[in-house]
């Protein structure tokens, strides 16, 4: 092994070559801004749109309206019914996907160069002229209700829902974006139209593209696609503070493996300590096999198949979250190990070796992300959502490198809150102390 390691050290110093990607900032005659990476070698374009606001815009008592609305965008538009729209999409071999999350409505599109104009015309119909016919509403409503019924007996869904309710209460973040069986049953066409006007508007769209398209072509495509949308959408909800108390909430459910969601308050994306916190979490619970939680809970003790933690900055609150699943008679031990690790890192920080390992991983992995039109378009739209500039790509690894052991120590003491670490456990955990009553 020594040989491999020394060879490795030499290569790490050299550093992997950075992907040469060039971002063009495109301003359209219609006043939209977009980021583009032009890459003509494969004759298609990946286009990403994000409408900020998302399901959190749902009106009072209309929880699930945005989600249902988004599910209906491809179910009929202009003079096409659902089938007509699907057939037209297939004939063009384009692919469109629409998704609502708490903070955004995402539209991801891929289309061939040879069918670009017609693909964009079709996509435009779904955004600007959706039909929301009663028959489509009934069909999609049934699908959403079927999903909601399944969630009632899905341990992960039960745990997430309970965690969010505990943390966010009546704020939109406190309930599932899909709504409830009652709210979805009661949703009318007017509610759906209102949700559409609230969420799909010019004042909140973020755009990126990568592939076989020039800046000029992209500009006119965007104006055609979005120029007829309403100018303004609905105001966004208030920010909310996250407050949790240490302890375990148990929701009894008859299943062999308990599922636990855990966490507390997180850190804002534009906080100057965010990079240090990100590196710290990579060491604590980032997805890799080297993370402390993976090592302690899985590798050393075999208590789980998967465990991870992640920072989740949202538009109106920040969370630090994790997930683990263990057999009912072992989950108590898993939770106890996680609590210990949380406290240990908060108090003692990390070692120089761990920090170096995390840095070489993060800096080495970064250029590998830019490996295709699809991934590049998604990265570009994500950067804009985070308020970054195109130059970020060149400086990002330097900022990771600049994180010191002291930074990690400071951030660990600030961000990790063992005394606020709440676990919501769904299952029949044995020997686990519970402080919160079943809801």
């Amino acid at each position, binding site marked *: 092994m020594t040989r*491999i390691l020394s060879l490795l050290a030499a290569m790490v110093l050299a550093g*992997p070559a950075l992907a040469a990607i060039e971002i063009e900032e495109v301003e359209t005659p219609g006043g939209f801004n977009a980021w583009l990476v032009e890459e003509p070698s494969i004759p298609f374009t990946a286009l990403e749109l994000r409408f900020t606001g998302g399901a959190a815009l749902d009106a009072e008592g209309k929880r699930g309206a945005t989600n249902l609305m988004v599910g209906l965008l491809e179910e009929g538009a202009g003079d096409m019914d659902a089938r007509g729209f699907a057939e037209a999409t297939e004939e063009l*071999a384009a692919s469109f996907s629409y998704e609502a999350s708490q903070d955004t409505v995402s539209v991801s599109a891929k289309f061939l160069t040879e069918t670009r104009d017609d693909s964009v015309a079709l996509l435009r119909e779904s955004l600007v002229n959706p039909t929301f016919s009663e028959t489509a509403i009934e069909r999609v409503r049934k699908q959403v209700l079927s999903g909601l019924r*399944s969630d009632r007996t899905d341990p992960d869904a039960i745990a997430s829902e309970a965690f969010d309710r505990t943390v966010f209460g009546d704020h939109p973040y406190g309930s599932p974006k899909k709504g409830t069986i009652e709210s979805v049953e009661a949703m009318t066409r007017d509610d759906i139209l209102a949700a559409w006007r609230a969420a799909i508007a010019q004042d909140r769209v973020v755009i990126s593209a990568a592939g076989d398209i020039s800046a000029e072509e992209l500009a006119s495509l965007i104006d055609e696609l979005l120029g007829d949308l309403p100018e303004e959408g609905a105001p966004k909800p208030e920010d909310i503070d996250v407050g949790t108390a240490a302890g375990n909430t148990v929701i009894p459910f008859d299943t062999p493996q308990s599922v636990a969601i855990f966490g507390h308050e997180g850190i804002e994306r534009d906080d100057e300590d965010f990079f240090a916190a990100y590196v710290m979490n990579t060491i604590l619970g980032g997805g890799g096999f080297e993370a402390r939680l993976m090592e302690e809970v899985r590798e050393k003790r075999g208590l789980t198949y998967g465990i991870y933690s992640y920072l989740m900055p949202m538009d109106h609150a920040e969370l630090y979250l994790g997930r683990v699943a*263990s057999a009912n008679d072992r989950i108590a031990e898993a939770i106890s190990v996680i609590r210990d690790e949380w406290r240990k890192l908060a108090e003692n920080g990390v070692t120089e070796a761990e920090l170096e390992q995390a840095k070489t991983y*993060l800096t*080495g*992995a970064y250029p590998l992300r830019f490996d*295709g039109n699809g991934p590049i378009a998604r990265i570009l739209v994500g950067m804009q959502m985070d308020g970054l500039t195109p130059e970020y790509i060149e400086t990002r690894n330097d900022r990771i490198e600049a994180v010191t052991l002291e930074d990690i120590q400071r951030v660990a003491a600030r961000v990790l809150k063992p005394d606020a670490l709440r676990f919501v456990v769904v299952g029949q955990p044995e020997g686990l102390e519970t402080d919160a009553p079943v809801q």
Partner: protein
Amino acid sequence: MTRLAAALAALMFAALPAQAQDIRETLEEVTTFELDNGMEVVVVEDHRAPVVVHMVWYRAGAADEQPGASGVAHFLEHLLFKGTDTLEPGEFSEVVARNGGSDNAFTSFDQTAYYQRVAADRLGLMMEMEADRMVNLRLDREDILTERDVIIEERNMRVENDPSALMREQLNAALYLNHPYGTPIIGWREEMVSLDLDDAYAYYDRFYAPNNAILVVAGDVSPDEVRDMAEEHYGAVPANPEVGAPRTRPQEPRQMAERRLTMEDPRVSQPYVMRSYLAPERDPGDQREAAALTLLEEVLGGGQTSVLNRALQFDRKMAVYAGAFYDGTKYDDGSFGFAVVPAPGVSLEEAEAALDETLQDFLEEGVDPDQLARIKFQMKASRIYAQDNVGSIARRYGRALTSGLTVEDVQAWPALLQEVTGEEIVAAAREVFNRDSSVTAYLKAPEAEQDAAQENEEVMQ
């Protein structure tokens, strides 16, 4: 729009035949060769980003296990991260991560594969380590017990906690009377708990050798570079004549009786019905029927415009979801399946009857030529989109070559899909939809729970 779209489609199809020709010639830059020790090599070039995917595929999967040791192929896959004569447990992944890469592995019925995604200039190091664990695995008894707990938790997560997964296990076990495809890849829990070091080494010694493996490298590399590195690292591992004998597994006898299952689990809140038929797979040099079944899957179950969704979701409003499943890339005969999730107020019996009526109508009416044309065009386009992700091309080759197919078969496949006619699709359907070689399964909650759920809902409304 319909008229416009039709006109458009006509235009595109007119333009396509010429294009379809070059798809095969130019779309994928694939080079294949073989090392002296019998290890096959596939190189897929993509020079847009300095990234490479390095995969080693073994012609050995769960269906090659000894009876009584179910799950050992997957168990061993986990254990390959546990160290060799020169690598400490966990060190493999640590080195990959230290180089900015990610790594993992997976086990299927017919193959086991290990892969890393790294910067292109780290390829040699990946090969060095992968060649090392191909033959130098060093396991200790303690370590493997912890890892056995991990795979049991994996089974808990994937299967025991999910009534739908439990039902699919039961269905598969009933579908195959004799073939090991009836045994779950992850293993039966009752056998997993006693898997030991001997089981793991027995499987390792039987299947892990360069002459039973395929190297697939995709990304920013040239075939010459790959050849040099592969000869250095993998070429140094001698072929093992004990390994890689033709795979002969117990085959299915004639099936003469339809099987029906009902599984009840209180955790089911959305009941559904599944049906699986035994179905042929792609054979080397003989893939036409599998191509017809691949198209049949799309015709019947591919999205909004498919036959099942049109009939069950849109016209008769009896289902909230209907789908068809077929995977032709297997070593032995596989299955063709359906799932129907009934709409509220529709029983599983009614949903099943509606499925059968729809299939019957389809067999009589045949394939809608417009639909078939759309599907074929989408399949062509999907080859253009696939170039954006060479990893997916790497997986396509790896899977096919470990399922008994050749490079020629892989390359002939897209054209075959374009050639298959509507008549062939219906003929393949008639051949496969034989109830004597099928299983129908209902998944639902016990009656009491169902009533309770219903009441609950009524109260809430």
